[in-house]
Each structure stands twice: as C-alpha cells, then as structure tokens.
C-alpha cells in the first residue's frame, strides 16, 4: 500500500492547484492528464504484456469518435456517450488484437499502425458523418469552468492510474509480466498466455477509449489531428518510454513532462518540438529506465 500512498499524496496536492494558478496552466494540465491515461494504458500493454502497440491512437480515436458521433448526431448525455465510446474501443481492440496477437515484433507493430491509417481514411472518406479532416463539433461539454475541467481530469487520471497500477501489481499483473517476459516459460507454468495478453489489450483499450471520449468532451471538438493521427500515438509512446516503462505511473509523468515542456519552450516557436524530442532522445540514451524507472530501480537486474 505504500506504493499507493505517495502518488495519492501528489494527486491531493495537485488538486489544490486551482486555488493558486490561472486558467491557462490548468487547461494545460487538464490535457496532460488525459494524455497521462493514454500513456499508462499503453505501458500496461508494452511494459507488462510485452507488446509494442504502434497505434494507441486507434483505440483513442475509436473511443473519441464513437462517443462524439453519438453526442453530435443523437444528443445523448455525455456519460452514456463516454461509456459507449469506451465500449467501442474495447470491441475494436479485440477485433484488432485477436488476430494480431498471433504476430510478433515489427509485424504486430505494423498491423496496429495500419489500423490507425485505416481509421483515419475512414473518417476522411465519410466526411459527411464524421466531419472529415475539419473535425466534429461536440454540442455538450463537461464544463466551461477551467477548475472543474481540471478536477475532472485529475480525478479521472488518479482513478485510472490507481486501477492500472493496482492491476499491474496484482496476481494478474504478475502473470501478465511473466507472459510478456517469456511466453514459453509462462505457458509451461500453466498460464494461458494469449488469454492474459488479450485481457491486457482490452483493459488498455478500455482506458484509452474512456480517456479519448473524455478528452473530446473537454475540448468540445474531435478531429483526426487531435485524437487519431499517428503523431498522437507517437506522443503517447514517447511519454511512456520517457516516464519509465513497466512503471505505469511513470507513463503519466512522461506525458505531463512532454506537454508542460512543450508549453514552457513555446517562446522557441517551432524549435520547441525539436528541443523536447532531443531531450527525450537523450533521456532514453542515457537513462533508459526513464524518469520513474531510474528513480526507483537503481542497480537492479
């Protein structure tokens, strides 16, 4: 339980921010928190199940767009849309994973990549329904008040983080880790590796979808550029590796770092992205453990 105490404390402190800082910083962090959930779900899949998913934005986009369309076309209440979005993401995830898990390494990666491209094409192709590249406007939003949005996002990230982190530390997480590290041995120990990896994929899809849906109800808009394009997925992957793979919580750190750093460096204009990428590159070259990994597991293995 000590493992939970510190992050919860940090979350509590973060919850006080709105008292101190302006709406702008809050808006920034709100976005960062949703990205944090993306990254954590990805880490569960990579760090534990050992599968490199190049298309997290496929799951995110599915969740976001199905939720968005429900709200846009049928004006269903937000919470229904969010749940439906998450559900669609899971279904999509299963359809992708069941065959894809037979593949390994670059092949699994490519398939997940292609899934993103197909989704993107579909959105542009059916612009009539989806709004195409110029995006879909979402009538309802969570709130127009920065603090409320902030607290919702923070709460969501904290809960998701605890669940994902708890899962990774649970018996199931242990089995998953074993399966990811050495499938043959895990099988010989009597574990159905495919079953566990598929389950991990579903959980990852669930939270990616949830976060994707929540994100668009925060921004009041959904467009390929914000939730589908490969670039989004790349951000997620970089965040997770940067924060420290196999730590779940580290992924959230990485995401917050990426977005905040990008913002702080905004005066550099275009170069900001350049600098952020450079920093990330240096980190993975010299501290492969990432932020949390390096902090926690010094001299291990």
């Amino acid at each position: 339980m000590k493992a939970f105490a510190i992050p919860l404390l940090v979350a509590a402190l973060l919850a006080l921010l709105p008292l101190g800082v302006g709406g702008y910083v809050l808006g920034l962090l709100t976005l960062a928190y949703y990205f944090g959930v993306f990254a954590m779900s990805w880490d569960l899949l990579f760090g534990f199940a050992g599968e490199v998913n190049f298309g997290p934005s496929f799951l995110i986009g599915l969740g976001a767009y199905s939720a968005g369309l429900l709200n846009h076309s049928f004006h269903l209440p937000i919470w229904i849309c969010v749940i439906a979005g998450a559900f669609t993401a899971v279904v999509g995830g299963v359809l992708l994973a069941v065959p894809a898990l037979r593949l390994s390494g670059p092949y699994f990666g490519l398939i997940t990549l292609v899934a993103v491209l197909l989704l993107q094409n579909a959105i542009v192709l059916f612009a009539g329904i989806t709004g195409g590249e110029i995006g879909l406007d979402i009538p309802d939003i969570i709130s127009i008040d920065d603090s409320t949005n902030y607290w919702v996002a923070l709460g969501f990230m904290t809960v998701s983080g605890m669940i994902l982190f708890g899962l990774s530390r649970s018996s199931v997480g242990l089995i998953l880790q074993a399966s990811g590290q050495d499938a043959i041995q895990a099988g010989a120990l009597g574990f159905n590796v495919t079953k566990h990896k598929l389950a991990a994929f579903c959980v990852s899809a669930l939270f990616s979808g949830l976060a994707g849906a929540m994100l668009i109800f925060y921004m009041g808009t959904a467009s390929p550029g914000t939730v589908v394009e490969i670039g989004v997925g790349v951000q997620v992957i970089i965040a997770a590796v940067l924060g420290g793979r196999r730590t779940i919580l580290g992924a959230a750190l990485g995401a917050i770092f990426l977005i905040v750093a990008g913002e702080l460096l905004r005066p550099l204009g275009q170069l900001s992205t350049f600098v952020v990428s450079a920093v990330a590159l240096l980190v993975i070259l010299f501290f492969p453990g990432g932020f949390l990994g390096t902090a926690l597991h010094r001299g291990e293995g």
Partner: protein
Amino acid sequence: MQFLQILIDGFAISSLYGLGAIGFTLIFGVSGVLNLSHGAIMVSAAVVAWAVAGSLNAGPYLGALAGVAASVVIAFATYLLVVRPIQTSRRIPREEKEIFVLTGTLLWGIMLQEAIAYFFTSNPKTVRPLIAGVVNIIGVRTPNQEILTAVLSWLVIGALWLLVNRTRQGKTLLAASINPRGLTLLGFELSSIYLFVWGLYGLLAGIAGVLLGAFLGVSSDNVGTLTASAFSIVVLGGLGSVSGSLLGAYVVGYLETITAYVISPSIRTIPVLLLLVLVVYLRPQGLLGRR
C-alpha cells in the same frame, strides 16, 4: 489505352517506391534496425537539393548532388548518434533494444522534421527536374522527369545488385545479413561493415529523396507518410529481402494507380492497406520473406 497509361504511370511511381524502400530493408537485413527516421532523411535530401538548386542557383545537378551528400551525412549521424549508442548500451536489456531503436530513430526523425520546417518552412517544395519536357509514348504523354525517375531508379537498383552479388564488399554485406557471427570468425570487423551499409543506405535514401522531390514534391509534413509507406512496402515484400521490397513496391504502386484509374482517386490508398493486413495475417514473413 488506359491499360497502357496504367502500365507507364504505375511503373514510374513503383520504381520510386522501390528505391525508397530498398535502403530501409537493407539496413534491417544487415544490422537488424528498423530506421523510423527514414522519411525524414529522404525529405532532408530533397529539401537540401531544392535549396541548393534554387536559392543558391547552383543548378539542378549540383543541387541533387548536395541533397544526396546531405542524406549520407545524416545517415551516418543516425547510426553513430542514435542507433549505435543504443545497441552498445549496457543499461538497456537486450530484449528491449528493438523498441529503443524504434523510439530513438522515431525521435531523431521528429528532430530532423522540425529542423527542416524551421529552416525551410513546412511549405511543400519541388526539386527542379533534371530534365523538363514531355515525350509521347504511343499516345500517352509522359513527362521526361517521370521516365528519368524510372530509369535512374533502375540504374541504382541494378548497381546495388551488382555490388551485393558481384563484389567482395557486397558479399560481406550479404554474409552479415545471414550470419554476422560467422563473419566475425572469418576476421571481418562488423562495426566497419555496419558503417559501410549505413553509408550505402544514405546514398540510396538520398537519391530516392531527390527523385521524389523532383517527381512529386515533398514537405516536412510528408515525413511520417514516407516512413510508413516504406515500412509497409518492406513488410509486404518480406523484411530484409531486397527483391521482396522491390516486388512489394510494384504491388503497392500498381494497386494505387489502378485504384485511382479504375475506381476513384479518393480511395487510392485503402486497397493497399487492406492487402497489407491480409498479407501480414496470412503470410507474416511477407511475399518473398524467409523464416
């Protein structure tokens, strides 16, 4: 008539795809690296060529030369600054080298892309064609540049084939891709072989980039797409198999062209993606891949 058009157009674009993919597959075959900064390197070559040829008025040929040179330099940088440090790092567990190389080259690619956008803006650029004008092939008006592209691509591909199959240096490349340890036992330094292959890769990517820039025009925004298409072509043909990626390139090129002609330009890429999914599921090793 239309058949002939499809034949000609498909050929040019396919050979360009092929040229772009070969370097990518070569690196993977010999040193087991999936270089996700591939697109960025190609675009860099094209943009440098454009800048030198245009702004500095050095003329298309000098520009092209500069572009290729730049690409070779960047290729070496990619290997020495990103790939090798990861491969030799003790802190990174062996089974995770792959994802680290992927992430590393990815970040490197983004850095290149941003650098290009910063110095040359993200506006699309077209390299001045080496030879302008058009010729009429049995009723199909074809730009000389298109023919040149096809011819050059095949010259380069041919040269590469000769290098790999007819020269000592090339044989070692082939051997390294089959069994690096065996090569070490015969007294070859793998490190120098890798340097050589990255140089070769830079050359190929550079030429492909410049031709691409002249034929279709490039922008720093294309980086991702280019890498993805090279990746798909290579997997389609079989990772690490040069002849495979050539076949893959032609399948993709013609499939796109036929779709554009016969069905509709608006769904040009979709059949390719679907085919890719199919192949990866039914024959993961790719069309000509071993394993």
